[in-house]
């Protein structure tokens, strides 16, 4: 079934790439969304079954696949608005839509891959399609962003490949050459720990480029800054989820060997440094889009802290990354309206947004409450659980420093966003501000409400599935 899905998306993507007219373009995008939804429903109905040998519809895969499908619908809608408004040439439009469908399909397939090499191949495809999306505007800065993204992702993909090579060396003692996650886990007691140590270090470092964690986070920040808003929303939600899945599946394997403590230390250090870096940059940053990107770095730091702390932290990490995907993509969708109103990314030249676009301003207000994890938002629950896991694991000093860093982050975010919402800008020319229809924000409200609902009152099946994802962790 997954082969049919991939082939049909490839066909749709190719047609979108070669088609320069408007008449066929949007029916094709709608067809893609239909295929994506149909595939998600099929995956849910065939829970825990394998497909085409290399893919399994397991709990983690299905949670992430559903997240990706939910986000891909508004992403297509806002891409449509963005592409129609921005008056680009027909060929860049065609490349945009082709890369857009390919990115979502590659990410979806990588969620379900049960073999580390298959996952790696789809990660490579996302680099290709993402670079086409970042280069959408064909100018100097976009080229710089694309170059940095492609170069760092190429190096990190090489790292993952080295990790796979080491993993296959570590399996020599087990007498098996099958590198599927299931077989690796079954042989975890026979794996040579030294090679596994190397393998984990390389796989972890490689996937941090996609996850947006220290040390490879820079590529993602530049990419989100230069990519169009809807594409940046995908980068900060589903592509980050893909990096998480890549690390998490390897972490499960390592956690079942004698290296568990060492691995959680490695993950914990990277997570803490990401939080620190995010806090330092967010105090100084003037570009609103980069601020959102650093906020993603911060949240990924929290997610990985949950993984490092263990216990309830595993549950909280998966919950947090799903909720963060909804909230952050909604904020990036709103960013396009913000840019349209003020014509700049500079925070100092934006202000009094309530006056120009009331609905959009309400979205930003709600999104800021969500993203800083204030009580009514769903992220509050997951962050609280992460803090609890740190407390229970007796990492009190880490917890205190993390809370101090988060205070700085919340302060800088609130300061900048409230400035945009309330305080007027001196010398701003009001005559050319376009009117933005309020129904365009509808999807953003839906995503924010969905995040709050899943966090505060998670359906029993959702909780059950998250618990199923972490059942192999000690």
């Amino acid at each position, binding site marked *: 079934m997954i082969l049919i899905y991939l082939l049909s998306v490839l066909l749709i993507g190719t047609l979108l790439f070669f088609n320069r007219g408007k008449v066929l373009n949007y029916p094709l995008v709608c067809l893609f969304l239909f295929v994506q939804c149909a595939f998600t429903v099929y995956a849910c109905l065939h829970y825990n079954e394998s497909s085409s040998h290399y893919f399994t519809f397991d709990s983690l895969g299905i949670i992430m696949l559903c997240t990706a499908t939910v986000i891909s619908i508004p992403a297509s809608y806002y891409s449509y608005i963005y592409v129609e408004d921005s008056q680009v040439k027909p060929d860049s439009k065609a490349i945009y839509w082709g890369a857009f469908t390919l990115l979502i399909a590659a990410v979806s397939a990588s969620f379900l891959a049960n073999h580390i*090499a298959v996952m*790696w*191949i789809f990660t*490579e495809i996302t*680099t*290709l399609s993402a*670079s086409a999306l970042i280069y959408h505007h064909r100018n*100097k*800065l976009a*080229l*710089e*962003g*694309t*170059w*940095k993204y*492609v*170069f760092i992702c*190429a*190096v990190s*993909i*090489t790292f993952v*490949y*080295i990790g*796979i*090579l080491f993993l*296959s*060396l570590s399996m*020599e003692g087990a007498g098996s*050459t099958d590198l599927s996650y299931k077989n690796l886990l079954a042989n975890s007691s026979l794996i*040579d720990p*030294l090679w596994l140590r190397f393998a984990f270090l390389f796989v972890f470092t490689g996937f941090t480029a996609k996850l947006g964690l220290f040390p490879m986070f820079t590529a993602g920040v*530049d990419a989100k*800054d*230069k990519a169009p808003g809807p594409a940046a929303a995908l980068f900060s939600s589903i592509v980050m989820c893909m990096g998480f899945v890549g690390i998490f599946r390897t972490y499960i394997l390592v956690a079942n060997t004698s290296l568990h403590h060492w691995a959680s230390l490695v993950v914990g250090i990277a997570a803490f440094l990401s939080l620190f870096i995010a806090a330092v*940059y967010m105090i*100084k*940053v*003037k*570009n609103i889009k*980069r601020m959102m990107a650093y906020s993603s770095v911060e949240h990924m730091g929290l997610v990985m802290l949950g993984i490092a702390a263990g216990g309830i932290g595993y549950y909280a990490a998966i919950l947090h990354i799903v909720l963060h995907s909804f909230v952050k993509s909604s904020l990036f969708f709103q960013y396009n309206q913000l840019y349209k109103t003020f014509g700049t990314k500079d925070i100092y030249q934006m202000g009094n947004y309530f006056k120009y676009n009331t609905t959009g301003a309400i979205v930003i207000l709600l999104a800021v409450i969500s993203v800083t994890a204030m009580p009514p938002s769903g992220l509050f629950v997951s962050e609280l659980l992460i803090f609890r896991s740190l407390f229970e694991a007796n990492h009190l000093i880490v917890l205190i420093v993390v809370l101090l860093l988060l205070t700085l982050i919340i302060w800088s975010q609130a300061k900048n966003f409230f400035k945009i919402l309330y305080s007027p800008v001196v010398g701003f020319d009001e005559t050319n501000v376009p009117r933005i229809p309020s129904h365009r924000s509808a999807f953003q409200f839906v995503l924010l409400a969905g995040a709050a609902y899943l966090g505060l009152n998670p359906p029993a099946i959702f909780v059950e599935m998250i618990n199923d994802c972490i059942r192999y962790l000690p």
Partner: protein
Amino acid sequence: MLHVLLIIFLISLFYLSIANRMSTYVNVLAFQGILLFFVAFMELKNINTLNLILILLETIIFKSLAVPLFLNYVLKRNHITREAEPFVPNFLSLIITTVIVIVTILLSDLMKEGSFDKMFFVVALSTLFTGLYFIASRRKIITHVMGYLIIENGVFILSLAVGSEMPMLVNLGIMLDIFASVLILGIFLNKIGDVFKDIDVDQLSNLKDY
């Protein structure tokens, strides 16, 4: 014989670390491609014809003909200066490369004796880290790309060490190599050459936070 080839490969890294001219870099990369072909030919004894053709394509045609020709073309077309212009003196580069090799040798001492040849491990890892060091210490974008190509060579050696048991992994590595190099070299080095006339990383510093 295999070890002699690998040691020659290691020496070529030392030579690169003190090389001054861009054309030397290109020539050494081409030479490394030929070395890799012989290493692959000797290490992978029982492979089928299809795999052999793939490896031949990758090492001889791609690594030692297509890539050097393309790099020379880029160098000429964009009038890149002949000097490599490193941030650090050549002597220091030589010392750092030596330290990298020594550290990998010490690291390989940690390993148990097994079916795996330690020589491959030492050469592959020192190539990898030397490539990373070249990226960090050179100023031009094209030298960054060369650093990446050196890393790829290191990865190819490592994959050969595993390859006797798992030819699938070698093929994957070749796929990665061709895919990433074409993406980087073909599309972007060309584009960057068009947009930024003198390719220097200092020009790629407009994306910043404040």
